[in-house]
């Protein structure tokens, strides 16, 4: 009898908990649907400029890279980003990576956690931002978010079944430099990365980019196709070798036109066909991304858990 009563109590408790979580989830969905913020996003996919996420805002992004592969199967790598503006000088971002190699398999390949810190308060001729990232990925990760050290196309030809057995724990530092000039943005990133597993040397890489909106003045009416909603540019990125053999040789380099379409209904679409610049590079990478920004996310979370309105 006691056993039955206990089972009934447990059942009621579970149902109450389940109702509570469903209620919280429904509230979160409603909150997110009404707190969208208009984005003015840069078109870069690899390069960073010096602009951080607005404080309290969350940007949810999905990116996809299709790559051709000589000596192996073509692949489709994808990642999600959750970018949160902690303050006006600090943005923190969490990534989840995956990939699907044709005729092989689809894998979750790891996570990354990055932080960007604005170093100077005001705008200057050149604006520095410090970037620190920790990543825990498998050897099968193919998102090519950066090129470092002696990364070459043949590294990505290893079958998933073997590559997934390699586990990397990396610390990555970047110095992001960027400036705006007559409507143009110019950005330069230098990266240094250290694999914490094994005795690998420090590896280096670079990314540079330039972009400009198609129109500098805003039109007076709301529109999807106004030229000021489109930002076009180009980015170039590649490896710089490692501590023992620094330089542009024996690594890969890419050149990629980029375009972003900032829609007035809070979505941003990015597209970038990339081309390998030497024999060590993938011949073609097609990247695209979709993102949406939610304003006052921190406040919404506070309300969700009963904070003051």
């Amino acid at each position, binding site marked *: 009898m006691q056993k039955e009563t206990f089972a009934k109590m447990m059942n009621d408790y579970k149902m109450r908990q389940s109702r509570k979580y469903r209620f919280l989830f429904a509230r979160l969905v409603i909150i997110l649907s009404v707190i969208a913020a208009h984005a003015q996003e840069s078109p870069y996919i690899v390069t960073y400029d010096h602009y951080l996420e607005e404080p309290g805002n969350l940007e949810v992004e999905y990116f996809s890279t299709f790559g051709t592969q000589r000596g192996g199967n073509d692949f489709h790598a994808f990642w999600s980003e959750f970018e949160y503006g902690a303050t006006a000088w600090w943005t923190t971002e969490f990534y989840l990576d995956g990939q699907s190699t044709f005729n092989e398999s689809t894998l979750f390949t790891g996570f990354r*956690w990055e932080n960007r810190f604005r170093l100077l308060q005001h705008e200057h001729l050149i604006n520095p931002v410090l970037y620190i990232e920790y990543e825990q990925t498998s050897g099968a990760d193919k998102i090519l978010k950066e090129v470092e050290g002696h990364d070459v196309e043949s590294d990505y030809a290893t079958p998933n079944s073997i590559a997934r057995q390699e586990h990397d724990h990396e610390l990555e530092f970047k110095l992001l430099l960027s400036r705006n000039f007559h*409507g143009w943005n110019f950005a330069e990133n230098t990266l240094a990365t250290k694999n914490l597993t094994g005795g690998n040397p420090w590896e280096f890489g670079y990314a540079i980019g330039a972009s400009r909106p198609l129109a500098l003045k805003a039109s007076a009416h709301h529109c999807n196709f106004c030229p000021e909603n489109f930002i076009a540019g180009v980015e170039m990125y590649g490896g710089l070798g490692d501590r023992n053999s620094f330089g542009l040789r024996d690594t890969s380099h890419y050149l990629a036109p980029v375009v972003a379409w900032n829609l007035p209904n809070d979505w941003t679409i990015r597209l970038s066909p990339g081309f390998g610049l030497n024999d060590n590079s993938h011949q073609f990478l097609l990247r695209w991304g979709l993102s949406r920004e939610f304003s006052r996310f921190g406040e919404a979370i506070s309300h969700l858990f009963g904070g003051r309105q």
Partner: protein
Amino acid sequence: MKNARVISIITLTLIAALADSEPTLAKRHKAPPDPESIYAELTKAPAKDIARRNPLESDPEAIPAGDKLFQMHCAECHGEMAEGGKKAPSLLVDEVQKSTPGTLFWLLTNGVVRHGMPVWSKLPESQRWQLVSYLKSLAGPTKPTPDQGHTNH
């Protein structure tokens, strides 16, 4: 074990990040930033910036375009009528309205990073001047007040 440690560090930092944004879990009972100290930023504009004239002063499109930009980028914190909100002060006050267009342009460009206002230099110069035109129009005879309602252009 190592994974658990890494995940714990990330979780704690994400909580810190959420708590550091205003107003959020940790700060929701604190007072909003002191408007006086934010307005004081206007006095820090260099003389050459204060003296800059708005190149779109006589552009009839500048005010409605500035209104559109304001609703897209600024209203979230400063309120739809620029009357101020929980996160940012009113822009209808004398400290703002009596500032020169060059001063407002300088502030938009540089932000007030310490007090949570981001730099807005990511908007092209012309769009920042359109915003300045709109802000200055709020001081005119057609200055909207919260009970007049707001019309999007």
